[in-house]
Each structure stands twice: as structure tokens, then as C-alpha cells.
């Protein structure tokens, strides 16, 4: 902690102080239930009178709904009720996903079920509610919808052309948002450059594939006037507000409960029309309604992401100094901007992040965000970062190639100096403190570059093509209200924690951040144990219930540790002080002369045990009569935390990828992968490393295998896991993770986010590795995913 003693700061090993848990690889408390199948995901929740929803989804990319005949469906055994868009509109208002600070942004009103037109294949159009999911699907099969297919706008490149199909005529055109950031004199920089290189990059549209599909169980209790929603979500409080607003209820009448969540990655932080439909149907029926997406539904209706085409140029001088970047990004986001985060943020991030690790003066980057008749896109793990990093690092490698310079050397010459902070990047991002050069140095300790280069040369003589690629990156974490709040969205950047001591001396923390596998519960337990002075086993963590936890934003944009963790730490410290006040009175000692170590009040100087917390709890809760009348004895404290100085806490890192490309088949074999990242204070190295590894694999998936492929009519072709490929264990490399720690001074804890670093840098490192392998053959790939067909095409073999 910045001004709290840690074992390291007073010259002790981490094990020397028994309840100093910051920086220790403590196993997560919730893993035993996961490995024994005793978790409770939303689909596992059982309530009486439950009915199940299934949706008829549009078979067309764009079509007018002429007529819906529900008569036959209503007669199917088990079917309880059928709902159309008009039925739900009676109780549910539409939403429009724009943010005021994204100047000129526009989108159209979206209903839970559309009233007149379907605008993507897979859009939910009619809902059937039945006594089982199977019966509901039988009901869907019996629905008769008359469609008038309309011309569809699929290609984002032509979406603004004169002949384009305007998806929402009231908006005038298909332009959602555009922004240009410009700094310095780009034209002059490029005119005077020693070398200018350019390339067009494509990042493939892909999606999160949470293994637990989107799941919701909504129950409206007419007697109480309350809506209780069990939801697989990252942001319970945000969803509480959304359900209340759209269903015209008071926020206090809505409770969102989120138990175990089977993966999120940004997929489960958005408002989905089928989920709002479930809440609306529960509101109408006055009974619980459940919907769990099947895998086909997940592929066509979970948000997609990363559908970008980017033209980029880089200018360098003769010494390899970067003079400027000039970048043009276009992205298609489907027919609606997704509520409430909007679908313009990803393109906006590309503008904010390109060139991010480097010190250069001249910058121009434009993003153009357009509508199209495909599944809506929105924020997915590492939002915009993998795109910006691939463009930046791809261009830097091309520049190095043009200069005949080593890729490590060009990075060393251009990375922002470690003593240059605070630093403001050309597009205006403010960096409090980064460690690019330290991270590079650490990486070079880990990667045996000389041995690899020797092996590469040797293998090439044998006709085997191996490549080593690097990618530096920055990552935006701990967002302030500058991300969404200033745009008018009710998305909380602050978070709260309540920490209390119960009579037996155990401690409970209630937090507004949530757990989807990252280890939120684990780090909160460690932080509170550290802050109060108890063994981790004595701390219980409660998250995921709007009725009991302090209001907070949930878990997204790598804020759980940095924001939620700091709130928990502040609460824990306050509770400790409160306990010591009470203890001081009981022991007739100055509170400042006492401490709490491993659940025991001790003398600070000598460490002599004075009283176990269980005894203190017994007296406070059961024999309060023995304490002075005016003694404050509330053993509970709440603190909220929000960052104040910087809009975002940026992190940084660098990755390296070592691959072998089979030039006969075009198949890429991942040999080894390295990542050094700096997320500030590391609370639990084990969890951070596994976040990084999981993130790397998600990045590699999007760069190698994962692709939402559409046919010419706008039908999604990749709707099973046999068609949409995700990384499997046999294909994935061994990954080595290292750290540099540059704590943020915004908080005592000093933690920044760690969950997206792997995903941010992996595709770029992989691309550069593949191109390093292909370079002697005169081939290059810049279009993700790097499929065998694309690699063979680059080699001129097909």
C-alpha cells in the first residue's frame, strides 16, 4: 500500500507478517464449490410457479413483420402465453443507446421485441412462455410469422454510400458516430519522413462465448409490487436501474441477484432485448419467467465485437524515431447501438489508444461507426485495445523492416521513457505512471531471444518457418465517470464496501463489485483480512445482490480490484480503528497502543495477546451493559471509493509470441508465449497470472480461430461450437507471465486492473510472429483471424 506498511516495505518476506495478505497467492475461497459442482448459476435457481420463455428469432437480416399468427402456438400443450412486441410495449419503454459526450452520436429506439421490422438475423421477435423450455420451443415452432424481406445493408464499407439501405430512415443515414483526434502536423511529418509504410488491417468480428449462456429469471410479485431478477450479469445495480426505468417502476422495487456467473468477458454487461422481454413478461404475468439462451441464440444475439477495418500509416526518421501515425478506422456495429454503454466506445477506444506505448508528436486517427444488418456489437474484453495494439504494433514492425532495424531496438528507441510521467498522449490520454522500458527489460530476461533466433535460422535451413513477434501495449483500467457517467449513462464509476465484525469475531464484507471467475471474492477477502487483521478464513465475502450490497458499478473495465478493492480496504481500516476504540476501553489502553493480528487484539509494541476478537464481540453484542454508556460500539463501517485525479488508470505491458507456420497447410502452431504486465500493486500473483493467461488465450482465439462469418444474405453461418472455433487445450502454448509493479497513487491499495492485458496484446504479438516467420518468403498477413486459407493466400499458394 502506498503509505501502509507491507511486509516488503519494512524488509520482511511476505510470509513474515501472518495477516499481511497483499501480494500473496492465497487460493480463492469459492473454488472448492466450483470443482465439486456446488455452485449456483442462474439456471440452477429453483422457484415455485416458474415458466420458461423461448423466442422466435428473425430468419432474415432485414424484414418487415407483416403478420404474426399465434393461434396454433397458444394451443400447444404446456404453452401458457404468447407475447409480441406490441404486447410488451404496453408495459415496457424502448431505449436509445447514445452518450452525450460522444458528439453527434445517434441510434434508434429499441424495443424488447420489435414492433414493425426485424433488423438482424437472430433478433428476438415473438416470445412463447410455457411450463417447460421444451414446450416453449414447441410453441415457437407452431408460430406463423409472415415476413416481407427487405434489402439488407451488410457491408460496413458501403454503409454510407448513396445507394446504401438506410436501416433507420428517421436517422437519415447509417452513420452512428465519427471522431477524429489530431495532434501536431501529420502532413508535414509524413512529408519529411525517412520512411513511410502503410498497411490495411482487419480484425475479425467475433464474440465472447461465455460457457454459461446468458441467463435470467425474473419474478414480479404483484402483492409486493416488486420485481426480483436472478441474472447472470456483471453489473447488478446498473441492471436494477435499467429494469426499473424500462418497466416504469421505482428502482427500490427492483432487486437484482447475481450468484455464480459462468463467464462474462464484457458479454454480460449489456442490455439485451430478450432479457428485458423476460422481465416485462414476468411483470405482466405476475409470476417467475426464465430464459437461458441456447448456443445458437448466443451466437446470433450475444454482442459481437471487433468488426473493424483499419488503414494505417507510420512515418519514421532514419534513426527509427516514430514521427507520426495516420489511421482510419471503420467499424460496423449492427442495427442498434447497444444500451447503455453504446457501440461507439470500441471505435472511440481505437482513436484513444493507437500509438499508445510510444513517444511521438504527430497523430491523426479517425473512427467511423456505421449501422449494418448484423448482430449488434459492443464492448468485449479489452474493448478496442486488441485492435489499436495490432495496428500500432503491426506498423511498428513494418517500419522496423523498412529500416532494417531489429523489432526490439525500434521499440526501445520509441517507448515512452519510464521517467517521463505524468505524460499525455497525442489523443489526450493521461498516464500517471507506466513502465514500458522496465517491462521490456523484464521480458528480455524471460525470452531467450538469442537461442530463439539461432533456432529460427537453423529451422529455416530445414524448411521450417518459425517466427518471434513482440507487442507493447497499454490498457485502460479503473475508469472514472469520464467513461460513461459524463455521457448521461447511469453507470457507476464509484463502488462501495461494507465491512462488519460479527459476535464470533468473524468479518463479513459486502461489496458492489461482482465475481465472474476473476477472483473478486478472493482479493476482497485478502484485502479485508489484511486491513482488519484477521486470518483470511475468518472473512466472508458477499457480492451480487442489490438489496444488500452498497451501490456500485459491478465488474467491468478492470475495476474490481482498483475500485472495489480500495473501497473494501478503506472500510476494513475504518472497522479496525473502531474495534480498537472499543478494545481500548475494555482493556483500559490507548487505542493507538493496540493492534489486531490474526484475529487477536495485541499490544502494538510487544505483540502480546490481549483479547481475541470473539471475546470482544461477545461483550459488545451480548454484554453491552458492561461498556460505558457513550461508547460507540458499531462494529460496521462503509466506505465508497472513486478515482479523482486521472480519468483512467492506465497499465502497460509487452508480450512475445513464438510460433511455427506450416507453409504447406497454412496452420500456425503456437510454441510459447510471454507477457510482462504492470497492473500496479499485485494483490494475488496467482490470480493475476491466471487472468493474464486466460486473457492471452482469448486474444489468440480471436486472432487465429474465432470468426462470426455471414453469408451474402446476412445469415450467420457460425452458430455452433463446431463452426465457431474457440481455443482448445491441445492448441494453446505454455505461457510465461512476469510483472513490474507501478502502483497508482490514487489509492492506498495502488492496484490497477489486470484482466484485459492478455487480450490487448496477444493478437498483435501473434501477428508479428507469423509475419516474422513468413518474411523470408515475402508474405505478410494483416487480416484476422489468421486462418490457414489466409496464410496460404498470402504465400500465393491458393
Amino acid at each position, binding site marked *: 500500500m502506498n503509505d501502509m506498511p507491507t511486509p516488503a516495505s519494512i524488509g520482511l518476506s511476505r510470509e513474515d507478517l501472518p495477516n499481511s495478505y497483499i501480494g500473496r497467492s492465497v*487460493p480463492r475461497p469459492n473454488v472448492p464449490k*466450483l470443482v465439486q*459442482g456446488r455452485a449456483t448459476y442462474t439456471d440452477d435457481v429453483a422457484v415455485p410457479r416458474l415458466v420458461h420463455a423461448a423466442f422466435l428469432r428473425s430468419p432474415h437480416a432485414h424484414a418487415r413483420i407483416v403478420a404474426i399468427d399465434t393461434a396454433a402456438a397458444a394451443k400447444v400443450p404446456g404453452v401458457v402465453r404468447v407475447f409480441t412486441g406490441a404486447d410488451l410495449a404496453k408495459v415496457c419503454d424502448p431505449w436509445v443507446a447514445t452518450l452525450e459526450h460522444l458528439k453527434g452520436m445517434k441510434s434508434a429506439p429499441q424495443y424488447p421485441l420489435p414492433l414493425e421490422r426485424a433488423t438482424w438475423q437472430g433478433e428476438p421477435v415473438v416470445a412463447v412462455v410455457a411450463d417447460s423450455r421444451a414446450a416453449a420451443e414447441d410453441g415457437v415452432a407452431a408460430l406463423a410469422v409472415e415476413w416481407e424481406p427487405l434489402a439488407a445493408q451488410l457491408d460496413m464499407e458501403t454503409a454510407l454510400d448513396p445507394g446504401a439501405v438506410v436501416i433507420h430512415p428517421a436517422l437519415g443515414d447509417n452513420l452512428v458516430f465519427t471522431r477524429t483526434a489530431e495532434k501536431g502536423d501529420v502532413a508535414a511529418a509524413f512529408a519529411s519522413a525517412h520512411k513511410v509504410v502503410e498497411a490495411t488491417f482487419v480484425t475479425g468480428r467475433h464474440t465472447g462465448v*461465455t460457457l454459461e449462456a446468458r441467463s435470467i429469471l425474473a419474478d414480479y410479485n404483484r402483492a409486493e409490487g416488486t420485481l426480483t431478477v436472478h441474472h447472470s450479469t456483471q453489473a447488478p445495480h446498473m441492471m436494477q436501474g435499467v429494469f426499473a426505468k424500462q418497466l416504469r417502476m421505482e428502482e427500490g422495487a427492483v432487486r437484482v441477484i447475481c450468484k455464480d456467473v459462468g463467464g462474462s468477458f464484457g458479454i454480460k454487461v449489456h442490455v439485451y432485448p430478450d432479457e428485458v422481454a423476460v422481465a416485462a413478461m414476468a411483470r405482466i404475468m405476475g409470476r417467475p419467467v426464465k430464459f437461458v439462451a441456447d448456443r445458437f441464440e448466443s451466437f446470433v444475439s450475444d454482442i459481437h465485437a471487433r468488426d473493424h477495418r483499419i488503414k494505417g500509416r507510420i512515418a519514421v526518421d532514419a534513426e527509427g524515431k516514430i514521427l507520426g501515425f495516420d489511421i482510419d478506422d471503420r467499424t460496423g456495429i449492427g442495427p442498434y447501438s447497444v444500451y447503455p454503454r453504446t457501440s461507439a466506445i470500441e471505435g472511440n477506444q481505437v482513436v484513444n489508444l493507437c500509438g499508445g506505448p510510444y513517444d511521438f508528436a504527430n497523430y491523426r486517427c479517425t473512427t467511423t461507426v456505421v449501422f449494418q444488418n448484423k448482430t449488434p456489437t459492443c464492448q468485449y474484453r479489452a474493448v478496442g485495445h486488441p485492435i489499436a495494439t495490432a495496428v500500432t504494433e503491426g506498423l511498428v514492425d513494418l517500419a522496423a523492416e523498412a529500416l532494417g532495424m531489429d523489432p526490439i531496438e525500434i521499440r526501445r528507441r520509441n517507448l515512452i521513457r519510464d521517467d517521463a510521467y505524468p505524460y499525455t498522449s497525442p489523443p489526450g490520454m493521461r498516464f500517471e505512471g507506466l513502465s514500458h522500458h522496465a517491462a521490456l527489460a523484464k521480458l528480455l530476461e524471460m525470452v531467450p531471444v538469442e537461442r530463439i533466433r539461432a533456432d529460427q535460422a537453423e529451422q529455416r535451413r530445414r524448411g521450417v518457418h518459425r517466427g518471434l513477434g513482440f507487442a507493447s501495449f497499454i490498457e485502460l483500467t479503473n475508469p472514472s465517470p469520464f467513461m460513461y457517467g459524463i455521457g448521461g449513462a447511469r453507470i457507476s464509476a464509484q463502488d462501495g464496501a461494507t465491512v462488519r465484525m460479527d459476535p464470533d469475531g468473524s468479518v463479513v464484507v459486502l461489496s458492489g463489485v461482482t465475481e465472474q*471467475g476473476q477472483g473478486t471474492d478472493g482479493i476482497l477477502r485478502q484485502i479485508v483480512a489484511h486491513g482488519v487483521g484477521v486470518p483470511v478464513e475468518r472473512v466472508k465475502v458477499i457480492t451480487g445482490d442489490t438489496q444488500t450490497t452498497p451501490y456500485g458499478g459491478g465488474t467491468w473495465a478492470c475495476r474490481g480490484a482498483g475500485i472495489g478493492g480500495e473501497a473494501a480496504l478503506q472500510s476494513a481500516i475504518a472497522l479496525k480503528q473502531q474495534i480498537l476504540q472499543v478494545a481500548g476501553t475494555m482493556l483500559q489502553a490507548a487505542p493507538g497502543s493496540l493492534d489486531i493480528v490474526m484475529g487477536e487484539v495485541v499490544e502494538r509494541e510487544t505483540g502480546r495477546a490481549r483479547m481475541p476478537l470473539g471475546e470482544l464481540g461477545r461483550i459488545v453484542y451480548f454484554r453491552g451493559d458492561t461498556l460505558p454508556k457513550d461508547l460507540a460500539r458499531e462494529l460496521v463501517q462503509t466506505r465508497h471509493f472513486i478515482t479523482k485525479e486521472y480519468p483512467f488508470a492506465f497499465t502497460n505491458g509487452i508480450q512475445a509470441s513464438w510460433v511455427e507456420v506450416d507453409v504447406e497447410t497454412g496452420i500456425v502452431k503456437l510454441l510459447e508465449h510471454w507477457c510482462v504486465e504492470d497492473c500496479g500493486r499485485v494483490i494475488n500473483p496467482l490470480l493475476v497470472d491466471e487472468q493474464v493467461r*486466460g486473457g492471452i488465450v482469448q486474444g489468440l482465439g480471436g486472432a487465429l480461430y474465432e470468426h462470426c462469418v455471414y453469408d451474402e444474405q446476412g445469415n450467420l453461418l457460425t452458430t455452433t461450437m463446431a463452426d465457431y472455433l474457440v481455443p482448445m487445450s491441445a492448441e494453446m502454448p505454455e505461457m510465461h507471465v512476469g510483472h513490474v509493479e507501478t502502483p497508482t497513487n490514487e489509492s492506498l491499495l495502488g492496484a490497477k486492473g489486470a484482466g484485459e492485458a492478455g487480450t490487448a496484446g496477444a493478437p498483435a504479438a501473434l501477428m508479428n510472429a507469423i509475419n516474422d516467420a513468413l518474411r523470408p518468403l515475402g508474405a505478410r498477413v494483416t487480416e484476422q483471424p489468421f486462418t490457414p486459407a489466409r496464410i496460404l493466400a498470402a504465400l500465393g499458394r491458393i
Partner: protein
Amino acid sequence: MSTRHDITLTVNGERVTRLVEARRHLIDFLRLDLGLTGSHAGCEHGVCGACTVRVDGEIVRGCLVLAASLDGAEVTTIEGLSDSGEVADLQDAFVARNAAQCGFCTPGMVMAAADILRHHPDATRAEIREHLSGNYCRCTGYQAIVDAVESTLTARKEGVR
């Protein structure tokens, strides 16, 4: 809609008799009819492995087996496997190594890993990776899972010596 069949089978050592629709998959039978929610439906087309359970000693996809075909069968789910203590060491290794993040794939992963422990005690790291390739994990990147299985195999071998 669907014909019904009477089946009697052993699930986690307990005899159960149910009337099931012909179209009822094993995974739905376990989750909906028996309340054994430890096994998960991830893709319902036999790819992801989240529904992996043991039938008559071999691991199967619960989403590809019809319950009606299991009259007389012996089924073991993650609940039964856990209660038996057969893989307590493997589960401890998963906890120590943080080989589960969201946990949705984990019961199926443990079932598949238990199969390695039973049938392939000398599996190499590459063979572990190959064996687990029918079980998707979106969170961990697999390395921790492979570590946990490998360390359990090693510990068991050392224990035998």
C-alpha cells in the same frame, strides 16, 4: 409430442425410477428431473464438454445421450464423484492452482481429468492437453488445468512408490 419411457437406473449409487420423454437428454434428466445441477449444458451439441458425466464407467456427453436409453445404467456425476472422494486430490490441486475461474466448465473438466487419472496414469503434459481438448474453458487458458492434472498424476505416482 413425444412418447414416454419408464427407466430405472443407478445415479451416484442411488437407484432412481422416472418416466421420461423420449427426447429427454441425459443432461436435462440429471438437472431437471433429479436436481443434479453440478453438470452443465454448455452447447447442447456435443462440443464443449460442460455436461461430461460417467455412464457405466466411461465419460460421455450428457447432451448427446438420451435418458430413455439408460435403463439399467450406472451414472456418476460430479456430485457423486466428489462425495466418493475419488478425486479429492485433483480437486485440491484445482483449488491450489486456481485451475477454475468461472467454474462453469469445471465439473466436466474434472470428470474428464478423472478419466485421465483412471486410464492414463503416465500421461504426459501433451497427452493431458490432448485428452482435455473436448472440454472447453474460456477463462483459464488451460495451463493451470494442465498443471493441476499433471501435479495430481505425479503425486499419485510418488504415493505409490
